[in-house]
């Protein structure tokens, strides 16, 4: 078999080359993943925190339902739910662009996983820290804001990193609702050019490059925020 990398310089029929199309698609992948990441971290931190509030059983229940619901339905099905079913049930959503709906799907799906990590992180802290904060006269909210969450987030950074890389990979399911991201590009360019191997290799390389970048950024953050003498606390991070 011979290579034909020239294929990327061909016109795709709309006045741009396949290379330009692929770069655009990469941008969409990063946009979907980046926006979903914000949604996932905000909702994950909120729900994970709620699950540890033993004095408010209803909030714990709410957060538990959230986690179980978004964790036990395949991501692709959730994408279809947001894209097709939600606009049909709630006409308000008919004005919302498909990109945003996919971001909700991917963000909420990932938030369930992050919530579990946040909860585990909070529960791994020695009880004394909470008591010390309360004894100092902090309210529960202050204890979380100034003592518990800053520690918990440092502890869960390693699993949070691998979840962020999972999120990036999971953004590939957006192809199913025709978001013009990398996997969508791969499928269409493969069909149009019949140079599947070259196209897939390039797309795979871009996915790996992006995942590597996420990994490096997290490693930098981990180093920046680390508390001297408290590194071993991170040893619990499993993350699959």
């Amino acid at each position, binding site marked *: 078999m011979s290579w034909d990398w020239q294929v990327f310089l061909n016109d795709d029929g709309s006045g741009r080359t396949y290379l330009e199309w692929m770069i655009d698609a990469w941008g969409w992948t990063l946009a979907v993943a980046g926006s979903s990441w914000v949604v996932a971290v905000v909702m994950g931190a909120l729900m994970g925190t709620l699950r540890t509030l033993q004095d408010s059983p209803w909030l714990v229940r709410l957060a538990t339902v959230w986690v179980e619901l978004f964790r036990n339905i395949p991501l692709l099905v959730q994408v279809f739910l947001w894209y*097709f079913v939600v606009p049909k049930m709630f006409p308000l959503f008919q004005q919302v662009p498909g990109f945003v709906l996919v971001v909700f799907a991917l963000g909420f799906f990932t938030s369930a996983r992050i919530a579990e990590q946040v909860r585990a992180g909070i529960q791994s802290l020695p009880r004394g820290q909470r008591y010390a904060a309360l004894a100092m006269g902090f309210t529960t909210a202050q204890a979380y804001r100034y003592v518990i969450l800053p520690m918990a987030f440092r502890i869960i950074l390693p699993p949070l990193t691998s979840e962020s890389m999972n999120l990036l990979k999971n953004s*590939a399911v957006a192809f199913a609702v025709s978001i013009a991201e990398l*996997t969508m590009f791969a499928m269409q360019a493969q069909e149009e050019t019949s140079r599947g191997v070259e196209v897939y290799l390039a797309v795979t390389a871009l996915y790996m490059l992006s995942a590597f970048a996420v990994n490096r950024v997290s490693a930098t953050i981990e180093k920046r925020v680390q508390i001297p003498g408290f590194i071993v606390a991170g040893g619990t991070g499993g993350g699959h």
Partner: protein
Amino acid sequence: MLGLDLTFLDWDIISKFVLGGLWFSIKLTIIATLGGIVFGTLLALMRLSGRKVLMLPATIYVNGMRAIPLVMVILWFFLLIPFLIGKPIGAELSAIVTFIAFEAAYFSEIMRAGIQSIPRGQVHAGQALGMSYGQNMRLVVLPQAFRNMLPILLTQTIILFQDTSLVYAIGAYDLLKGFTNAGKIYGRPEEAYLLAAVVYFVICYALSWSVKRLQAKIAIVR
């Protein structure tokens, strides 16, 4: 209810469209789990062998698989298998091969952790009794590693079951496809997606609940 009509679904449609898809999803999950554990254990043993010839390819394979989206892996195999064997292959068979190869990478990481969780003393005790490497692994290390990792292996299987829906990318006929087709033919696609979500949820929730129970049981035994 909210512009939806769920009454179209009856037993005829379910047995005609859904059951076949459900059966394929289950079959794919079971085959990929068993195959993934077998090949994953081999990969784990290669990575722990201490010999570079074995460690390097296994490490590259595992890390490579884990760095790529599953959808891309599914597309890769669907593109490459016919190319390698010289004749077209069905989407279903391609999906089975893909999932075994893909899951082997994930199961190997679990088995590696499991093998490393066994105290060195046990391995040395086996050696002192005159056991060969194979006997030591088969009779001492692997059974315990497997039991220690059972809850995580099962959790991975639940994730695997959810991931089987991604065979959508190559058009294989699974549970999701069964609902999608029924919805298309009866003009009720939204309702069909909703029902698919309910079915997936019930199965996955029940499974993860059982895993939790099992975990609690094992925790006491230890």
